[in-house]
């Protein structure tokens, strides 16, 4: 059963992403409201994939990605960035820090499910 950590400060987006992810058979969604909350959730259970926003209070998505990549226990977890920042330089920056994929908002649910399935299969 894949555990997917959704890190998003907006309750609307958290609910929308969780809705989409629950359509992947046997998947389980863990919700976090920011980077710090995400690190807590990472330490308390097994996570197979992280979906993270960039602009969040307390700790943003990019900081979270760099911390995840720097921790041997989490560095192999795929991270998909879901953000309103659609500029090419933002995408390059996120990927250079260690994100596996970059999905600009507003998200297409099919595209999100396809990406999640791809990284879960890998």
């Amino acid at each position, binding site marked *: 059963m894949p555990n997917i950590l959704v890190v998003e400060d907006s*309750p*609307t*987006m958290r609910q929308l992403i969780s*809705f989409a992810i629950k359509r992947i058979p046997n998947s389980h969604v863990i919700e976090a409201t920011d980077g710090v909350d995400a690190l807590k959730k990472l330490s308390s259970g097994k996570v197979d994939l992280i979906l993270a926003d960039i602009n969040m209070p307390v700790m943003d998505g990019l900081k979270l990605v760099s911390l995840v990549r720097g921790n041997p226990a989490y560095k192999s977890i795929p991270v998909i960035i879901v953000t309103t920042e659609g500029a090419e330089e933002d995408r390059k920056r996120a990927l250079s820090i260690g994100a596996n994929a970059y999905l600009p908002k507003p998200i297409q649910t*099919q595209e999100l499910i396809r990406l999640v399935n791809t990284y879960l299969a890998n």
Partner: protein
Amino acid sequence: MEKETGFVGKAEEFLQMFKKGEEFTKELLKENEKLRYRIAQMEESIQRSADEARIKLYENRIGLLEEDLNSLKKRFRQVEEENKDFASKYIEVEEENNNLANLYVASYQLHSTLDFSEVLRIVLEIIINLIGAEKFAILLIDEKTNELVPVSAEGMAVSEAPKVKIGQGRIGSVAKEGESFFSDDLAGAAELNPLEPIVCIPLKIKEHVIGVISIYKLLTQKEGFTNVDYELFNLLAGHAATAIFSSKLYTQSERKLTTIQSFLDLLKEKPRK
């Protein structure tokens, strides 16, 4: 001598008989050869007709198999068409499902609270995350001044959004008519003009307009509007309006209740003194 003549005569008679026998044998051999030839011909003819019958049988079978093959090919094409139809219907249903999920989440969130500022935050979230707008403002009608007053904004300061009289300019007309406005040029002007939105949506409770959502710029990656965006605009027009209106009333009544309660507490306290 007589004996000799008799012997010669018999010998000649025998020779004659032998010659006749030889001729007869030759005739028989000829006849036999003819018969053999005829038998061979007949056998050949029988063989030929058997081959022909077999070929005909095979031809019939091939014909039947070809018919079967054609009918299977036809069925295969039909099934292929049906599959294509199902696949496109599946994609449509999936899309519809996703759109409904978006609308459900938006509606659920809008009605999840009675806190005015939280409702405004949820409206902002929906416009940013689900529609994909970068710069926009929410303006509500001030019943006292009959003016649209900005109450919240994203990508710009609330003070940058204009105060507009009902019926005045693009925004005022949308509030007056209650009809949404969509600009043909969604890219908009390079500089922000608060009076010229690219999209303006009236917030309506039935036919009563309580405010507008004025969008000035979309996110870079948002190239245009899809069907679900128009559905979301419709949803915002109705549900955001009722959510904003009811939360505003609730907040006002809460405030009034607190004031009245304070008065009552004060009145109760007086006799003791």
